[in-house]
């Protein structure tokens, strides 16, 4: 069978549907991951011993296990353990939330701690309450500094969605696999899938660059 690119367009609608699912899982997952990550990161940076410990355990458990195992656990083990039954899409989204959340927590903690303590003291010495020092001074500076590693994590999470093929979520990779199974056009289909991923990650990179540029240089 020779390579024939003309067969690609007829499968594009199907691939775009898979891409849409990938985007959906990534966006919802990262939105949740940001919330969890910021909370856990704050617990690590400013929490008392107990909060710090809870966040640390969460982060280390997630970072120490593969995401495929995590989603398998959510999808197959949780129903047995707690008789909680979840559909594949929810399992995928929750997996991204808890997985990205752990890595984002470390990014948040690192960025907060990289801000010179003198700036915090300058804010406190003016008579600002601590939460305002965080919200107005340390937070914005840390956010600016966290954009490059966050961008990195966003791209990793986007690509991690391809692993949810194992629980049968109809995202982009799974869609490619299904088309492949029907026509065996490996070169054409996997090239198309790769290009779509590149467009997605490229757009993300561009967006983050733009945000970074718009914020004042330190």
């Amino acid at each position: 069978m020779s390579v024939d690119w003309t067969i690609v367009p007829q499968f594009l609608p199907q691939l775009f549907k898979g891409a849409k699912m990938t985007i959906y899982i990534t966006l919802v997952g990262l939105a949740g991951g940001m919330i969890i990550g910021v909370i856990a990161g704050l617990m690590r940076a400013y929490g008392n011993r107990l909060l710090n410990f809870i966040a640390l355990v969460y982060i280390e458990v997630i970072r120490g296990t593969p995401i495929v195992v995590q989603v398998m656990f959510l999808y197959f083990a949780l129903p047995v353990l707690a008789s909680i039954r979840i559909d594949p899409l929810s399992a995928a989204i929750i997996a991204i939330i808890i997985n990205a959340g752990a890595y984002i927590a470390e990014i948040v903690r690192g960025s907060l701690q990289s801000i010179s303590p003198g700036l915090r003291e300058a804010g406190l010495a003016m008579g600002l309450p601590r939460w305002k020092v965080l919200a107005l001074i340390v937070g914005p500076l840390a956010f600016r500094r966290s954009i490059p590693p966050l961008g990195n994590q966003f791209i990793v999470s986007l690509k991690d969605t391809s692993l949810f093929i194992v629980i049968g979520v109809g995202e982009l990779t799974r869609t490619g696999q299904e088309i492949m199974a029907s026509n065996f056009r490996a070169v054409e289909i996997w090239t198309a899938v790769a290009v779509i991923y590149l467009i997605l990650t490229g757009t993300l990179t561009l967006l983050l660059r733009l945000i970074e540029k718009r914020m004042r240089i330190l």
Partner: protein
Amino acid sequence: MSMIEFKQVSKHFGDLKVLDEVDLNINEREVVVLIGPSGSGKSTLLRCINGLEMITGGDLVVDGMSVLSGNANLREIRQEAGMVFQQFNLFPQLTAEENVAFGPRHVRGLSNSESLRIAHELLDKVGLAEKKKHLPSELSGGQQQRVAIARALAIKPKVMLFDEPTSALDPELRQEVLNVMQRLAEEGMTMVVVTHEMSFARQVGTRLIFMENGKIAVDGKPQEMLVNPTNPRLKDFLRHVE
């Protein structure tokens, strides 16, 4: 009238005793210069006044409020005691005028335009009116420190605390900062200044305190202490500084 009163103040870091039952009374309009060897507790004494360090023994009263009387009072004290740091600590993402307007805006709760008006007035006072749109990274060390002084003044403090404000500066940039401080003293600001600038101590200081091992070793008039030091360790210290 008494502005700052140390009553048997101690400060420990773990087992290390950094301030050792210090008694000290600073009145309005005094310009107190703190000197002493490295590690003698000068910065710690200063930082206890605005509660950046919490005292571990005794009591410390600033303008009638104890630093031990809760968070609300502590914030009140901090609004009455402006602090200038060795490393300036300007907010790097904000321009000079935004740095100075920050306190009026977010501590005093004034409007944006009113805060900026105060900022312009103070930048003018420290001779940096034309630099108001500059970021700290675009200013020299001396200019940054003058912005930092303006920022501290913007919340209308009753006392100004300086921790080695010229130590991070090249020698030729120190005078512009010292001049601003001198003018402040002449206007009657109560000041506590940790510094190695003996000329400033002599010309501007109304009182000189020599610290040693967390204690006040000598406390007197700058002229007398500098011209004719009787304490042998002060004598030794001065020889090393000059």
